[in-house]
C-alpha cells in the first residue's frame, strides 16, 4: 500500500511528516534536515533545483529564484496585495488567462501552482527515500484564512505533483491536532500561527479526541516576510543616507539586504544587537564599490515591528470575540511558525492572554505532524478522533446594486447547508445569474468573486413574482456547491465552485509533464 503523509506547504519552509498509527516522524533528508525551503530555482535550459540548493542561489541569481510562491497562489492579478508585492519581487508577475497571477522568469511564464508542485515533488521524493515506500497521498495544510480559490489552487498543485490530496487542512487546526495528540486534557486553546507569509489565529475546544474549531481569523498577507521588508526598507534608507544612493530598483543589491535583514531579525531573537556587514553591496554612481555596515538593536527592531505586531493582536481579539469567550477562558495558547521565536511576539501574546504560551512543541514541525495524524485518520477511519472545522470567510451572492447577501456566515461549522429565497428584480425576466462571492464586506467590489452560473427558462412575470431558492452546501472536505432552484417549476442548476477557478484538465496535464521533466 502506498503511504499517506502530512505536508506543511509553507511560504518560506515546508515540512513533511508521517504517522504510522503509533509514532510520528518528521522526515529528514540525507543531510538530516527536516525543514525544506519552499524555494525553486530555474536554471538555464529545463533544469530546476528545489530546497536548500535553490535558496543558496537566491543571493546571486534572484531573478531566477522563486520564493514565497504561496503568496501568489489562487490570487487575482488585480488584487491590491499582488500589486503591492509586484514591486518587491526580483522576478516578474504577470496576468494569466484566468486573471490569475503568474510568474515570469527568463521570458518563461510559470503558474504558482507549478512552482508549488516542484516543492511538493521534492517533499514526496524525500519522504519516499526515508520511508522506502511509494508516497502517493497527502493531507496538505493551508492558512486557515485562505479563501476557496487559494485552496483549490493548492489542490491543483498537488495534482500536478502526482499526489492525491486527501484533505486540505487548516494549519492552526493541524497544530491543535498535534497538541491534542500529546495532551488529553479538556480545554480551550488558541493557536497563534505566524509564519513566513501568513498569520492565523484559531480558537478550539478539545475534549476526548473531539476538536471543535470555535472561530478563526487571519491575514494572508502578514508574516515574517513583512518584518524582513520593514527592516530592508530601513536599510535602503540607511544606504541612501550614508552613501547617497537609491537602490530601490537594484534587485541584486536589494536581495542581499533582504537576506541580511532576515538574518539580523533572527539574531535579535537571541542577541541584543545584530551586526550587518555586506561587503560589495553594489557600485555607486562613480563606479566605486559600497561596503555596507550597520548595527541594528532591539529598540530599532521594536519600532519597525510594532505596527505589524499590533495588526496580529487586533486579529486575535476579533477571533476571541467571535468564539464568544473571554481571554480568561482560553486555558492554553500554542505558538506556531518560525516568527513566534521573536521575543517581542511572545511578549505581546503573553500580555494579551495573561499566561505563558506553551513551548513544548516544535513550532516548525507541529503543523506537518498534525497533518500526518489526520492523513492516518482519514486512511483508517479512526473512530476516536473527530475534527470539526469552520468556514473562515462568509459566502454569499450578489444582489441588486452591487451588494452581497450572505448565505453562510464565517465561522460556521462544516459540513453545512443553508439557503435563501430571492425573487426576480425585473419584469419579464427569463433568467437569473447567480454570482458567488467570498469575504466580509457587504459590497461585491470588495469581496472575492468565486464564480457564477445562470438559471434559465423562467416564466415571464412581474418582478418579485418568481422565487428562486439559492442553496450553498459545504461538505466535510470543504468543497462548496451552489445551486439555484426555480420554486415554481422545480427546475434547478448547480455548480461546484472549485471548477470555476480550476486550471483546466488539459492545462494541468501539460504542467504535469513539464514539471516532471524539469525535476528529473
Amino acid at each position: 500500500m502506498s503511504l499517506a503523509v502530512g505536508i506543511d506547504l509553507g511560504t518560506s519552509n515546508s515540512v513533511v511528516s508521517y504517522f504510522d498509527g503509533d509514532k510520528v516522524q518528521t522526515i529528514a533528508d540525507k543531510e538530516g534536515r527536516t525543514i525544506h525551503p519552499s524555494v525553486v530555482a530555474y536554471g538555464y535550459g529545463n533544469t530546476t533545483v528545489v530546497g536548500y540548493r535553490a535558496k543558496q542561489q537566491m543571493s546571486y541569481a534572484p531573478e531566477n529564484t522563486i520564493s514565497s510562491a504561496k503568496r501568489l497562489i489562487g490570487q487575482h492579478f488585480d488584487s491590491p496585495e499582488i500589486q503591492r508585492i509586484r514591486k518587491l519581487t526580483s522576478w516578474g508577475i504577470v496576468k494569466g488567462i484566468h486573471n490569475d497571477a503568474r510568474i515570469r522568469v527568463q521570458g518563461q511564464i510559470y503558474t504558482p501552482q507549478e512552482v508549488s508542485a516542484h516543492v511538493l515533488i521534492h517533499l514526496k521524493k524525500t519522504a519516499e527515500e526515508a520511508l522506502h515506500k511509494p508516497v502517493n497521498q497527502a493531507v496538505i495544510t493551508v492558512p486557515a484564512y485562505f479563501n476557496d480559490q487559494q485552496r483549490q489552487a493548492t489542490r491543483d498543485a498537488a495534482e500536478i505533483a502526482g499526489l492525491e490530496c486527501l484533505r486540505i487542512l487548516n494549519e492552526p487546526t493541524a497544530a491543535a491536532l498535534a497538541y491534542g495528540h500529546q495532551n488529553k486534557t479538556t480545554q480551550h486553546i488558541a493557536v497563534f500561527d505566524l509564519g513566513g507569509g501568513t498569520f492565523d489565529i484559531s480558537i478550539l475546544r478539545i475534549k476526548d479526541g473531539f476538536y471543535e474549531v470555535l472561530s478563526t481569523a487571519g491575514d494572508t498577507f502578514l508574516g515574517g516576510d513583512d518584518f524582513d521588508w520593514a527592516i530592508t526598507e530601513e536599510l535602503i534608507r540607511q544606504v541612501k543616507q550614508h552613501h547617497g544612493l537609491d537602490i530601490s530598483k537594484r534587485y541584486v543589491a536589494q536581495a542581499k539586504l533582504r537576506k541580511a535583514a532576515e538574518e539580523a531579525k533572527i539574531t535579535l531573537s537571541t542577541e541584543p544587537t545584530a551586526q550587518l556587514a555586506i561587503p560589495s553591496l553594489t557600485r555607486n554612481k562613480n563606479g566605486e564599490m559600497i561596503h555596507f555596515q550597520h548595527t541594528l538593536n532591539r529598540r530599532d527592531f521594536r519600532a519597525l515591528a510594532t505596527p505589524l505586531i499590533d495588526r496580529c493582536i487586533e486579529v486575535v481579539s476579533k477571533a476571541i470575540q467571535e468564539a464568544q469567550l473571554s481571554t480568561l477562558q482560553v486555558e492554553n495558547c500554542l505558538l506556531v511558525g518560525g516568527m513566534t521565536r521573536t521575543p517581542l511576539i511572545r511578549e505581546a501574546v503573553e500580555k494579551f492572554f495573561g499566561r505563558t504560551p506553551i513551548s513544548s512543541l516544535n513550532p516548525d514541525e507541529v503543523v506537518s505532524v498534525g497533518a500526518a495524524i489526520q492523513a492516518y485518520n482519514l486512511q483508517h477511519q479512526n473512530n476516536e478522533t473527530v475534527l470539526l472545522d469552520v468556514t473562515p470567510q462568509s459566502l454569499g451572492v450578489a444582489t441588486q446594486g452591487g451588494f452581497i447577501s450572505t448565505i453562510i456566515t464565517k465561522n460556521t461549522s462544516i459540513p453545512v447547508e443553508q439557503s435563501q429565497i430571492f425573487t426576480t428584480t425585473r419584469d419579464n425576466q427569463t433568467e437569473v445569474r447567480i454570482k458567488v462571492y467570498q469575504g466580509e464586506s457587504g459590497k461585491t467590489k470588495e469581496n472575492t468573486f468565486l464564480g457564477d452560473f445562470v438559471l434559465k427558462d423562467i416564466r415571464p412575470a412581474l418582478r418579485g413574482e418568481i422565487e428562486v431558492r439559492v442553496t450553498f452546501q459545504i461538505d466535510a472536505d470543504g468543497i462548496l456547491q451552489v445551486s439555484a432552484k426555480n420554486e415554481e417549476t422545480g427546475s434547478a442548476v448547480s455548480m461546484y465552485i472549485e471548477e470555476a477557478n480550476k486550471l483546466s484538465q488539459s492545462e494541468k496535464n501539460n504542467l504535469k509533464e513539464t514539471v516532471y521533466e524539469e525535476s528529473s
Partner: protein
Amino acid sequence: MSQELRKTVRINTLYEIVDDLDYYQLLKQKTNCKQSSIAPAFQLQSKALHPDNAPSALKDKANYIFTAINEAFRILKEPQNRLEYDGLLKNGVIRVEDTALRSGSERSSANDPSKAAQTEQSKKYWLMGLSDMDAERYDSAVMNIKFALQFERENEVFQEWLEKAQKAAQEAPKKEKNPFKIRL
C-alpha cells in the same frame, strides 16, 4: 456484528429517515433535556457519524446526515434559539432556516444596515424591523421601522427600508404567518 458493518447499517438506515427527524432526535435527546447535555450529545453523534469516519462508499450519505446533525447543534446550543425552535416544533416545524435566527446578531460588513441606527432607542426597533424583513414578516417590519423613524426622522437608511418593507407588504399579502422559512 463488526463495528464496520454496524456503522454501515446505521448510516443506511438514518439516511432514509433523516429528513423526518427533528433536532432533538438528531442528537438523540429528549425535548426537555438539560441545556448542558446538548454539547456532549453532539460530540457522541459526531464520533459515530462524522463522514471522515465513515466507510468510503458511504461518505456522501454520512455527509448528508451529519449536515443535519451539525445544524441541530448550531440551533440548540444557543438557549435563545432553542426556545424559539421549541415553539416551532410544537407547530410541526422540524427544521428551520437559521438565517432568520441569525439576523439579530452582528454582521461585520461596512455597509451593514444593522449598523444604521444612531440612537439606542431607534436601534431596538430598527433591529426588530430588519429581522422581520429577513423573516418576511413585512407588516411587522413596517411597524417597527416606523417606530425607529420616530426617534430618528432624518435617517435615510430607515426611509429607504421603510419603502422596501411597504412595497413587500403590499406585494406579498398572504405570505405564510410562520416567521421561519420551512425547509422543503
